[in-house]
């Protein structure tokens, strides 16, 4: 399951922010890597809502959930289970 979500998240990031999968460090912040800016976070949020029906709450918008690709994937998984 998590592999599939990870793949979907990566496809979105690659298409939307014009990077190669091989250029993304899955454990590092996408902002630090220069892949996204503040609007990129907004776009990722919209993607999560659109694809997985998850409305991210304000208190969930933090680095523990958005700080890397792996953290984003983990967050999506947790929220889908608790749904």
């Amino acid at each position, binding site marked *: 399951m998590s592999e599939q979500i990870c793949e979907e998240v990566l496809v979105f990031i690659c*298409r*939307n*922010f*014009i*990077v190669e999968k091989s*250029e993304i460090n899955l454990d590092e*912040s996408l*902002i*630090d890597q*220069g*892949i996204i*800016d*503040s*609007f*990129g*976070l*907004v*776009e990722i*949020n*919209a993607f999560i809502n659109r694809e997985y029906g998850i409305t*991210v709450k*304000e*208190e*969930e*918008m*933090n*680095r523990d959930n*958005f700080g890397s690709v792996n953290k984003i994937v983990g967050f999506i998984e947790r929220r889908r289970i608790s749904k």
Partner: protein
Amino acid sequence: MCGIAGILSEHMSPEERTDQVKRMIAALTHRGPDGWGYFTSSDITLGHTRLAIVDLNSGDQPITDGRYVIVYNGEVYNHPELREELLGKGAHFYTRSDTEVVLKAFEHWGKDAFTKFNGQFALLIWDRKEKRLTAARDRYGVRPLYILEYNRGWYYASELKAFDLIPGFNRSYDMLRLCEHGLLWNTIGDGTVWRNIRCLASGTIETFSAGSIPVRTRYYSLGETLFNSAQPIPETMNEAIDEFSAMLTDSVLLRLRSDVPVGAYLSGGIDSSVITYLAHCLNRERFKTFSVVFEDKDYDERTFQDDMVAAIGSDHTTVKIDYDSISDNLLDAVYHIERPVFRTAPVPLFLLARRVRESGIKVVLTGEAADEVLWGYDSYKELKLLRFWNRNRASLFRPHLLRALYPHLRHYADSKQFGLIKMYYEEFLSDYDNDLAGLNIRVNNNKSLVNFFNRDAGLVFDKNGLIERLREILPPDYKKWSLLQKNQYLEMYTLLSGYLLSSQGDRMSLAHGVEGRYPFLDHRLVERVFAYPDKFKLAGFSQKHILRRAFADRIPSSIVKRNKQPYQAPDLKSFFRSGALNETASTFLSPESIEKYGVFDKRQVERFLKKFERGQTEIIGYRDNMTIIFLLSAHMALYWAKNPKIGQVHDSSCTVAIIEP
């Protein structure tokens, strides 16, 4: 305003040199369509093309007085006072022009003359006796001057296109500089994005003699009077308001000095409204104002422009801009801009200048530079907020101030997105106060461009290297300044001189022979306000606070109270319609073009363009807008470098020809 060119080379015959300078001048006639002239000797040739504004009858150039010969592009507004002073010292004048005053001032005071000038200029003065050329440029780099060392000679020109007509010379990008420009909106120091071409740095003088290395002297640096001004700094806001209003009024008064009528640009913001208001009060005749209006309501400011026009009763003209106006004219605008840009915002000003000229006006006042001098940019707010938040990182309240940062950006105001914005800014808490100050955020937003360059150039993003290079140009007192003063210095040396005054200023208005004048850039005012306490300029989050307070009773309240809306035009939207690139953009960004120019990575650009073929989102982010305009304009600028327009000057319009045996 005018265009100047010159060649200093003893390895060419005077005839060959004269011929080349005439070709260079022919490429600059849009800057000065009212006549041209030249000087030539065994060492040097200087050329000039004139826009007649002061002393219409006898102000033709070059001017000589025996020992010195000058070609000059600009205005020194305090020329009547300097003339009086020089007359008192025994000088004789043959014309009423400010050019002669500049020449006599140089003759009398030498390089110290430049510290006495209040104005905007770039000039070349040839000393026949010492066989030495002096080049000088105004304090803030309003007027351009480029320098090329080629074929054992020095070449000088107001615009780069003049160099394209030198036999054998081809303009090409310096990829490292291009990347630096991509990150900062300007190159550092006196470099340009073009290989082997540099500019004369603002506030400097250089002297050139055949066969020796040029000698540079800096005669002005921002903040130079901060720690040694004899005049005490106003202690209260009210005292500062009185002083500031008087200085700004005097600055406008000086900039109304002209032998032709002066008009003004009215954007709808407070800066141009204040300038227009003051010009209206000082000018007894009915005043002409000009504005851009947009079909796309997201960019349109006409209600505010109308409020101001109603308040002063000006004779108002508007130019209406739609997506086609942008996409149809970017290529022609880039012909004049001569470097990549990040926004299409210069294009409407290009079209506005054309209308201004058609209406018979040659000189306009604008509100440019108020955002730098009085701290109107969001970078000042961002820094202030980060500093406040950093002092108590655990505070739940402090980051909430982020909501006030960009009221015009929908995604920032949306409370549902607040956590994301907080997360983004948190990244800057650790290094917001390094030497890049407010540029940290710009560099971070722009660094995705690095991936677009041709991989063969081997460019990588290196923030520390960038900071190191920047440190080389910082003034000695920089470390002693407040964080926001540092930010002003950086904004003035990057965005203001690299974009606003050049790409969006000088080049757009002079494309149609219109001279812009900038009252907020009077150096007396800039220096004085630089020394005011930070809170007079940014009080809480009230930007340009002193300006708002000073003119609150005189400008319509709708304008004083409105949120800042940066002047912008539709970027990506102008080129991407119904899921497809329009013709201009598809030609310039085709795989063949990318191959031919060799600047960008083909695959990266293809993937970027594909993103929009799948349809546009409702809101387009800064990065996507910036990227497409950067890619397009970089190719367009190179297109013009490779396909120069060849003009011709006619003997019938030659007003001065000085040929020295």
